[in-house]
């Protein structure tokens, strides 16, 4: 009964992982297919190149620009929803709606909104007298614009996880707080937020992992990695290095793929490490 799963995992996850390592130690022919063994050459090239440092920097900036606003925004919404709001179901559904949007559909919508000539973003800002912004064409804006799209897509999930966390806070704790005269924001500050610690931590890790793996929104909103390569993250670079016209290099792309794997492994390791400690000291 385990055979179907084992076969699929072996064929499409375990074996390819080994193959990725092997590819990263080989050169590539004209079509990007592997040829001679080159050892650690790709890794040496990568670590020595200013371009790769730029890619890592863009990747880090993208993670910060998506994770911090996404988690804080979700927290703010959930705390507001906790203040005995009328029509809470309508608000909940509203915040869940972005779920329905795939990365492709969300990106295409935002591409239309960011459109420099007819897009709503500039149209609305224009009414307040703000000059037109080159959302996707200005190197200092492109990454921010892609991050806004990403935060929009993730906010529903964050609200959901935090709402579930609030639901799990024992009633006695809230009652005790009310009896002690802590209401509204005082209760939120000193009780709800600390009690949400595990969920907030989980969200930071999971959003970081997702952010590191973002691809569709970058490819669709800023083809070619953005103006002056300003949106060229690690995953986009893997795609670009492997499939760029005339310069396809599966070896170098695989070396980047292994770097991505190691970074994500560290993130997951941190998650498990901290969770284990929590359980241990309880």
């Amino acid at each position, binding site marked *: *009964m*385990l055979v*179907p*799963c084992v076969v*699929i995992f072996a064929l*499409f*996850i*375990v074996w*390819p*992982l080994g*193959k*990725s390592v092997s*590819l990263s130690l080989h050169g590539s022919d004209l079509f990007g297919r592997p040829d001679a063994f080159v050892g650690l050459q790709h890794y040496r090239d990568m670590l020595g190149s200013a371009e790769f440092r730029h890619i890592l920097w863009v990747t880090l900036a993208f993670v910060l620009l998506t994770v911090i606003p996404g988690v804080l925004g979700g927290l703010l*919404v959930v705390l*507001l929803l906790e*203040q*005995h*709001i009328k029509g809470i179901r309508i*608000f909940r559904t509203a915040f*869940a709606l972005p*779920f*329905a949007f*795939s*990365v*492709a*559909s*969300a*990106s*295409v*919508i935002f*591409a*239309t*909104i960011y459109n420099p000539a007819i897009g*709503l973003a500039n*149209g609305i800002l224009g009414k307040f007298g703000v000059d037109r912004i080159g959302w996707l064409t200005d190197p200092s804006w492109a990454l921010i614009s892609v991050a806004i799209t990403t935060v*929009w897509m993730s*906010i529903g999930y964050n609200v*959901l*996880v935090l709402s*579930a*966390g609030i639901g799990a806070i024992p009633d006695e704790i809230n009652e005790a707080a009310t009896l002690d005269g802590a209401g*509204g924001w005082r209760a939120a500050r000193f009780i709800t937020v600390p009690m949400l610690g*595990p*969920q907030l931590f*989980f969200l930071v890790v*999971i959003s970081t992992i997702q952010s*590191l793996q973002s*691809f*569709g929104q970058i*490819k*669709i909103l800023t*083809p070619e990695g953005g103006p002056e390569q300003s949106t060229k993250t690690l995953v986009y670079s*893997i*795609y670009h290095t*492997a499939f760029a016209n005339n310069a396809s290099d599966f070896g170098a*792309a695989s070396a980047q*793929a292994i770097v*991505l*794997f190691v970074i*994500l492994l560290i993130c997951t390791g941190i998650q498990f490490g901290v969770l284990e400690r929590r359980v241990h000291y309880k």
Partner: protein
Amino acid sequence: MRQLTAGRVVTYAVLILAALAVIFPVYYVIAGSVMSPGQISSYPPDLFPHGLFTGNYEGATHSGTPIGQQYLNSILQTSVITLSQLITSVLAAYAFVFMKMWGRTVLFGLFLATLMVPWESIVLPNYLTITGWSIGGERLTASHAGTMLALVLPFLANAFGVFLLRQSFLQFPLELRDAATIDGAGHWRFLTRILMPLNKPALMAVSLYVFLAAWNQFFWPLLIGDSASRRTLQIGISQLNDAEAADPGLILAGVTLSILPTLAIVIFGQRFIVRGLTAGAIR
């Protein structure tokens, strides 16, 4: 009745603003899809459609854009992945919970470990493997059927479904299982007649979760389909956007059509999705 203090006014104001910001793109895609080309391209932009213009939908479904075929491709790809993951996950979860075998815990640990391998790190070897296969002397991806097969193959099983169903099966009372065995029910009969009907919510959660993920896939379908009629809907709408002199109304109509199934799932299946999506977060 609570007093309407200044604090509560601010609370409502911030919430309403946040909700509007989140809903706005949803509203815009639907409103824009029924605007005439002249209206949507006007500057400053209009927020409300003048009447119901259906030309974009006609354009998106007819003309040079093979959205109809791509819709069918996506439905096929998503159904096969969902059905297959459901079957493989039920079987594996059953084995992990109800069959005693050597190395069960270790194997389950290895299953979970596969979740830590990011798709982006193994996509290149998978691409080389699958485009390297041939059937009857022809490359697998050279035919429409072969392309559909290539789209689904790596996703026929996933450890997340196994994990979720195992959690659910573990809750199953052992007395019921023993009673079924005494009544002469074998593994298969117990699984299909008793266990699955009693675990419908978990099965729904897995199905909807897998459906959403498969329908929304982007990276792999981008690499696999090499002609318009073999692409999935997600790639199709993103290419509407790439086209020179893209018509925004047409794009938004395409997007609206593409989100209908997932919108239905999010609105009507919310409680099942919550279960799947928050499985890792709440302990």
